[in-house]
């Protein structure tokens, strides 16, 4: 186009046009209105934002990627998640971990990725050094999904269960979880309130635990009655069972409480004898004996065996982790931690593993995964000093009930003369630590 028309000089009402000033005025007014609406929208915009606070998200906004994916972030995230799953099954664990942050960066609201990812990190790799990373990942998930119970529950569970066994962190997480609905908008399931009661029990707050079971029971009764009124057979069956479980659990705790009430007056003194031997490089044999262990029988009169945890880790492992709180790469590269949880205490106090009176700490092989990882990566043995811990914690879930019947909910049956470390709420945990030099191991 090379010709343009000159501005018409004599064009009265040509095509019904407004003056330039009028057009500019109207556009300006509309434009300002749009800006005012935008100011209003900015106040609630964060509710609709796709981005969360993720480790990858610092300084990046995933909706900028969203533009290039035309909003199909979640599809990409889903595909990456499937890829991550393949990597897991192929045993490419080191490659797997970065996917967690990538997937949650793209879709920070997919709670399943947080919970599954955390389970990988804390359980499925069999590498206790990854627990802080798993907890941090869950923490991020909670921050990005604070309105559903799912991830609070995961935080509660992993603190309650063997990766952490910290009931004072687990309890508030369960309590918080019980306040929120699920991703599908349904009320929190009753088992969350069960976990509240369980956590209270493991803390040693037995009266509060009984009160919680009573509360759970009343809730179930109310729902059962509602269901009967509505004649909803499925609901009736469900709440009937729930009611019975809560009542049984409540009564069981009451019974045990009566049984264990006078344990402080019948304390046992339990000490630990401990010997180690380097069987071959990176293989340490632990010979442990618990002296003064009472005989423990279950409700049917059968012998019950306590479980003893044996840990080999860098001296001051917890302090080192705290010092590198979010430097998981450093932790994974430099720290060593080996945990053996299910060693059995025989009637004579000998700690056994698979029926033999010796616990083998094998730092020369992968304890968990096939294909195996390089043991030099799993157990770098970078320090000169290590601590070997032998521990009998009466609170933990893997102890048979008969152990608590003799040693107490939280070790109130353990005398002050025993080898023990104190815990919160006056807990006593039978424990002995010795320091090993690197030469004692390699």
């Amino acid at each position, binding site marked *: *186009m*090379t*010709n*343009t*028309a*000159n501005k*018409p*000089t*004599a*064009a*009265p*009402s*040509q*095509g*019904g046009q407004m003056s330039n000033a009028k057009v500019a005025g109207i556009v300006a007014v509309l434009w300002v209105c749009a800006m005012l609406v935008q100011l209003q929208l900015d106040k609630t915009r964060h509710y609709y934002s796709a981005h969360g606070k993720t480790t990858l998200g610092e300084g990046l906004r995933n909706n900028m990627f969203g533009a290039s994916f035309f909003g199909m972030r979640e599809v990409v995230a889903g595909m990456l998640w499937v890829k991550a799953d393949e990597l897991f099954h192929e045993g490419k664990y080191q490659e797997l971990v970065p996917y967690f942050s990538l997937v949650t960066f793209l879709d920070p609201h997919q709670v399943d990725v947080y919970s599954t990812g955390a389970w990988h990190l804390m359980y499925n790799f069999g590498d206790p050094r990854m627990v802080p990373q798993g907890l941090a990942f869950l923490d991020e998930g909670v921050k990005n999904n604070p309105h559903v119970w799912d991830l609070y529950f995961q935080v509660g569970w992993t603190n309650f269960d063997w990766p952490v066994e910290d009931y004072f962190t687990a309890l508030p997480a369960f309590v918080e979880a019980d306040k929120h609905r699920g991703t599908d908008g349904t009320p929190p399931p009753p088992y969350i309130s069960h976990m509240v009661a369980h956590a209270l029990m493991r803390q040693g707050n037995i009266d509060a635990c009984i009160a919680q079971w009573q509360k759970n029971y009343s809730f179930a009764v109310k729902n059962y009655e509602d269901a009967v009124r509505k004649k909803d057979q499925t609901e009736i069956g469900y709440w009937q069972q729930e009611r019975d479980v809560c009542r049984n659990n409540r009564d069981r705790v009451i019974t045990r409480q009566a049984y264990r009430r006078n344990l402080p007056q019948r304390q046992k003194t339990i000490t630990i004898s401990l010997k180690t031997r380097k069987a071959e490089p990176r293989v340490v044999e632990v010979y442990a004996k618990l002296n003064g262990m009472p005989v423990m029988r279950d409700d049917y009169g059968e012998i019950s065996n306590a479980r003893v945890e044996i840990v080999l880790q860098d001296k001051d492992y917890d302090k080192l982790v705290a010092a590198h709180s979010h430097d998981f790469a450093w932790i994974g590269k430099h720290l060593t931690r080996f945990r053996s949880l299910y060693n059995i205490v025989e009637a004579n106090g000998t700690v056994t593993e698979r029926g033999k009176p010796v616990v083998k700490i094998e730092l020369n092989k992968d304890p968990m995964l096939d294909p195996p990882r390089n043991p030099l990566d799993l157990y770098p043995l970078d320090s000169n000093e290590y601590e070997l811990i032998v521990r009998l914690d009466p609170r933990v879930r893997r102890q048979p009930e008969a152990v608590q019947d003799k040693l107490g909910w939280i070790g109130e049956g353990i005398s002050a003369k025993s080898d023990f470390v104190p815990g919160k709420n006056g807990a006593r945990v039978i424990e002995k630590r010795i320091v090993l030099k690197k030469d004692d191991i390699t």
Partner: protein
Amino acid sequence: MAAAIQIRNLTKEYHNVVGGGNFTAVDGLNLTVETGQIFGFLGPNGAGKTTTIKMLLGLIFPTSGEASLLGKPIGDIQAKNEIAYLPESPYFYDYMTGPELLDFYGRLFGLSEKVRRERIEELIDTVGLAHATGRTLRQYSKGMLQRIGIAQALINDPKLLFFDEPTSGLDPVAHIDIRNLILRLKDQGKTLFLSSHQLSDVEMVCDRVAIIHKGVLRTTGHVSDLLAGSQMCIVATGLPADAVAKLRALADKMDDEDGQVTIWESDVNQVDEIVDAIRAAKGRLVSLTPERRSLEDIFIETVRETAPVKPDERPVAHED
């Protein structure tokens, strides 16, 4: 009776952005079209015919000058209720059928459904498309498209119609049909502004014509005036050489062949003088006949009077 179209000093200039310089598509046009006339607007391609029509219809805006249609200034939306326009080789929404298209245009005039239905039926019949009412325009031939174009122009029963090259590219039968239709419209007292370079059409149907070339109005007048009394053809023999030389000075144009002299003269007084001169020289006056020119002659004469258009002066973005 008021003039249907009044044009005063209408000018349209295009400014050439690339080359600088202006191009004047229409230059100070003055024109009056009386109500009830069929007005032929003639000119070669690029003369400024369509530019003028588009200015009158408010599709483009004049650089200067003014015009009125049916007494209202151009661009007046009310005036358009009484106006129709058939562009050259129009193209319509081809997914519609003929009646649908007419209904669409009828709605633009705010015609009631009843009126629309009646008019559509009538117009489809008038333009001879009754056999094709079920077809979409995609299946129409060029002639059929022109017919439906005329029908859409008539949907509002307009007083003033602009037809731009209404017969271009049509077969002879369609040609005649459309010519007859135009005459029928004239009978209905409508004013038609007909732009064309098809001179034979214009000659047969128009009351007045204007010839425009290079944006400037060259001639205007009633067709009969333009054609009648145009010139005399005088044939004489037996004239001496000095008489022939004298006549050559007097005449507009003269042929001298084998002693027979043929003289063309348009001035009536001059004709008397020529005849007197022939008689005075004892020549024999063979014939004295008034010669009617065709519109084509006038057209070609008018256009030839102006120098050929240089290529670089031709409008670039403007097509006519």
